[in-house]
């Protein structure tokens, strides 16, 4: 249905929508994040949820203490190699549809601790990330921005046909292998199905 007709109908008091729009509108205004923080970014996340920045204005107020009830995991802080399997396990325990925000430099790439022996160099090595927020730590405004970006992403997800949302695609996995503790590093060091770093070509 074209936009002009929709707008004309609306003026006459008739609201027309599609099931997909209605469904996505409901989902994007009620994203329940997992109550889960790892380092200093978690403090910014708490500030975002509290009264001054108030994530509730965008429908994200209900931080759930259980992954079974959460739609979104905000990876807020440094993921150590010892913690990484637990983060992947929490992600696996979340019901579909589920989304991931990598908050801050550490969750994206290891950040200032990238060369450390104990720090995972980005959570995208094991779970798919929807929105990355740079910053060390990002300010609450940045987290709100990421949250709104995620809402935009959800709004555009299709329910049927080619190119429908990943969680509706039965052939795509919704759980990812949990890395094991190896003798020198996590095994495997990255999930090759997910993590495809760009080939660096230099002289």
């Amino acid at each position, binding site marked *: 249905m074209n936009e002009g007709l929709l707008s004309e109908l609306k003026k006459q008091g008739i609201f027309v929508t599609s099931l997909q729009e209605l469904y996505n509108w409901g989902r994007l205004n009620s994203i329940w994040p997992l109550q889960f923080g790892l380092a200093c970014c978690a403090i910014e996340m708490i500030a975002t949820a509290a009264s001054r920045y108030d994530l509730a204005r965008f429908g994200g107020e209900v931080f759930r203490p259980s992954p079974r009830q959460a739609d979104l995991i905000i990876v807020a802080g440094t993921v150590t190699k010892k913690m990484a399997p637990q983060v992947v396990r929490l992600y696996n325990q979340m019901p579909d549809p589920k989304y991931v925000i990598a908050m801050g430099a550490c969750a994206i790439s290891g950040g200032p601790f990238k*060369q450390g*022996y*104990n720090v995972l160099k980005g959570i995208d090595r094991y779970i798919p990330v929807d929105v990355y927020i740079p910053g060390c730590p990002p300010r609450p405004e940045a987290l709100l921005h990421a949250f709104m970006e995620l809402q935009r992403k959800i709004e555009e997800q299709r329910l049927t046909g080619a190119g429908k949302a990943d969680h509706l695609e039965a052939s795509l996995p919704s759980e990812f292998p949990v890395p094991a503790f*190896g*003798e*020198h*590093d996590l095994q495997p060091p990255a999930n090759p199905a997910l993590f495809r770093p760009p080939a*660096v070509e230099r002289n």
Partner: protein
Amino acid sequence: MESLERIKARAEEAVPGATIKIIPNASPANQPSLLIDSDHTLAVVQFLRNDAALRLDFCSNVTGVDWLDRTVTTKVKVKTLIDGEEKEIEQPQVENFPGYLETVYHLYSIALKHGPVVIRLRTADRADGVHLPSLTPVYRSAEFQEREIFDLYGIRFHGHPDLRRILMWDEFVDHPMRKDYREPDDYEYEPTPHDEVLERAKEHYAARPQLDGAENLAADEHG
């Protein structure tokens, strides 16, 4: 608090057979320390804690140090005969010091409000002889810190009630704070590498395609 020399003399008197050495500190901190031999450590430390004038009842800090094998070259003046004439010349003298692991304890007295007395324990070497007595039976506060040193440096503390890794996972076999530790290679993607990281990242760089000039011709054709 009495001087370190006096503490050393009294401790050696109280614990027969103990050898204690004063390690000077040339840095601005000027905080010399006591090196205690491993066989008499517990007796000496118990003396430091129980002695009425010292009463070092609090161990605030335990640190590990890794000393690699090192070679020190010093110049020594030697008198030799050159052309029938006695002359003083400088000769390099090379000394080899084998490496060892070390723990440093900072002891304070809360009762008498003085401290710290710094004590050191040294292992025989960096390979098989990495054994030291644990001070946890005397100072409970050393328990977690000795576990951390065991985890990161690999010193085995005898007499420790629960010597397990505390930071790294149990399956881990390395000791990351040792100076010869090499971290696992996950340098496959480094956007802006430099120094050591650059050297290691280079191992992952894709090989440049061999160019024969044909690609320039193709570019010319397309304008």
